[in-house]
């Protein structure tokens, strides 16, 4: 029954959100406008950087307390020209920092900027963002109000999917971000342990950066998560501010999504290994070692293994003891059904604005096959009556009872779905591939696609594949809804 553990953990995580109105950081907030340096690592971002700077200058924040540093990672496009033009347009607010040798990844680029910014004591807070993200006007000041509490080292915001026009994949990501950010990070606020400061929206107190050695970890693909963990291990609190909204462009092709998620998943494997001493070991100085936080972390990281083990166990039981297998299957899927209904409905209620656009993808998140299994588990008589009608109409008696191959297929589906999801990635570049891969994602579920990607990350890490930074392509399609 360990197969149901990730679902139960997810339900527990969502239940914690209900007490966020009591366990939050708002009581320690004060109006606070520290002198804030905004660091934007940029490599060939000419298409988006100008608009991003313009939007930052429209932030509801004192302009003399805001400076934007674009760290140009040896761009070969017009990025330097665009930034220098903006520096002339906003004198005293925009600076262009150029690295002549680039391509080492985001962390190296950030460190180039950090070194220069920290050398000057003007900066009291530092906002690390991506070149393409769009901050809603009040977002920065809603983040800085938490820094009024000296115990807070860093604050992150709610990143929302903002690709316009979007497609089926960006809508799936939109729903995923409700669950992974608006929901999961609220529950992490309740626990007092945040898993990751969003790469596109992390605000640090100067003291926190100094405590981190003034540098971002460069040896990992998950430098954001490393920074988040180190902040909390240093005794500083990390806060998620759900009402600071930041819009980001996300991949609209499976290939782009795969690269991005593979990087994140490999990074998470590296973080798990690097911080192996702290899991499930409660500590007075931080909450990263709490049982609940460890449960959430490992249920997500090991989800593909849980799926495979569920399928293997059910198939083994099928041959050893059919009734036991049938009972285990029902218990597993009833738990899946109950948590699916609760999480989907609650997620759509948490962010109804996004929910209005993505409710179809929310329903289809587990995929058509899993949905059929959920409906069958909840309402088996509907299926049985339907099959009876079909069989009597066709004068087939054998179909009255579920054939063995169908049962075995259903038992194996959790593991198989990841393989089929991988086919969606393989099919995409081919003729009619985008239609086929989209169809496959709706059949197997977006969740299975992410699990396939996590599974691929295990293999890459086991094979000690090269830790190469593959930048997510951005085209300036992010927009705020009017």
């Amino acid at each position, binding site marked *: 029954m360990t197969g149901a553990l990730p679902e139960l953990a997810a339900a527990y995580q969502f239940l914690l*959100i209900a007490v966020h*109105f009591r366990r939050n950081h708002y009581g320690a907030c*004060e109006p606070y*406008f520290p*002198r804030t340096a905004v660091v934007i690592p940029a490599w060939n971002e000419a298409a988006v950087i100008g608009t991003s700077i313009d939007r930052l200058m429209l932030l509801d924040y004192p302009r003399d307390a805001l400076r934007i540093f674009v760290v140009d990672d040896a761009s070969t496009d017009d990025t330097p020209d665009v930034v220098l033009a903006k520096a002339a347009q906003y004198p005293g607010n925009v600076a262009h*920092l150029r690295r002549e040798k680039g391509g080492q990844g985001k962390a190296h680029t950030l460190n180039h900027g950090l070194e220069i910014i920290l050398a*000057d004591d*003007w900066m009291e807070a530092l906002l690390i963002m991506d070149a393409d993200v769009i901050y809603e006007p009040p977002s920065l000041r809603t983040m800085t109000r938490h820094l009024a509490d000296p115990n807070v080292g860093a604050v992150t915001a709610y990143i929302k999917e903002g690709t316009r026009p979007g497609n089926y994949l960006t809508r799936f990501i939109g729903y995923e971000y409700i669950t992974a950010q608006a929901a999961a990070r609220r529950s992490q606020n309740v626990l007092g342990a945040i898993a990751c400061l969003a790469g596109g929206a992390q605000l640090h107190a100067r003291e926190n950066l100094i405590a981190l050695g003034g540098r971002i970890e460069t040896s990992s693909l998950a430098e954001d998560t490393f920074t988040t963990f180190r902040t909390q291990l240093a005794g500083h609190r990390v806060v998620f501010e759900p009402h600071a909204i930041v819009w980001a462009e996300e991949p609209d092709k499976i290939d782009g999504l795969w690269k991005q998620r593979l990087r994140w998943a490999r990074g998470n494997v590296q973080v798990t290994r690097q911080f192996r001493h702290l899991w499930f070991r409660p500590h007075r100085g931080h909450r990263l070692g709490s049982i609940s936080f460890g449960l959430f972390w490992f249920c997500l990281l090991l989800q593909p293994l849980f799926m495979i083990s569920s399928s293997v166990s059910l198939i083994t039981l099928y041959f050893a003891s059919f009734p036991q297998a049938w009972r285990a299957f029902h218990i597993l899927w009833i738990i899946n059904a109950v948590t699916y209904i609760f999480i989907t409905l609650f997620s759509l209620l948490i962010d109804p604005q996004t929910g209005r656009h993505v409710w179809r993808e929310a329903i289809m998140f587990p995929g058509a096959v899993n949905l059929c299994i959920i409906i069958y588990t909840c*309402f088996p008589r509907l299926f049985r009556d339907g099959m009876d009608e079909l069989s009597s109409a066709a004068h087939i008696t054998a179909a009255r009872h579920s054939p063995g191959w169908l049962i075995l297929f259903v038992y194996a589906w959790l593991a198989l779905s990841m393989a089929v999801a991988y086919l969606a990635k393989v099919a995409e570049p081919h003729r009619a591939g985008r239609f086929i891969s989209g169809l496959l994602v709706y059949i197997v579920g977006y969740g299975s696609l992410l699990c396939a990607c996590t599974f691929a990350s295990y293999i890459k890490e086991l094979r000690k594949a090269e830790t190469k930074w593959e930048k997510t392509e951005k085209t300036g399609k992010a927009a705020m809804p009017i």
Partner: protein
Amino acid sequence: MGKDGEDGEGSDADLTVTRPAEPSRAFQREIRAALRYERGLFVKALIALAVVAVIVTIRTLYFA
């Protein structure tokens, strides 16, 4: 400010930045609104649980 290296190191260290205090009433209003939203999530969680309970009851009574 401008291109990398154009500024003298630490040249702005003693810059006086005016920090207009956020009007206290507006700030309190924002915090109250945020807390109201969070309290609303408690009610929404109850609604979601109630829907699950109804489905489980229907399933148990009529479709088991």
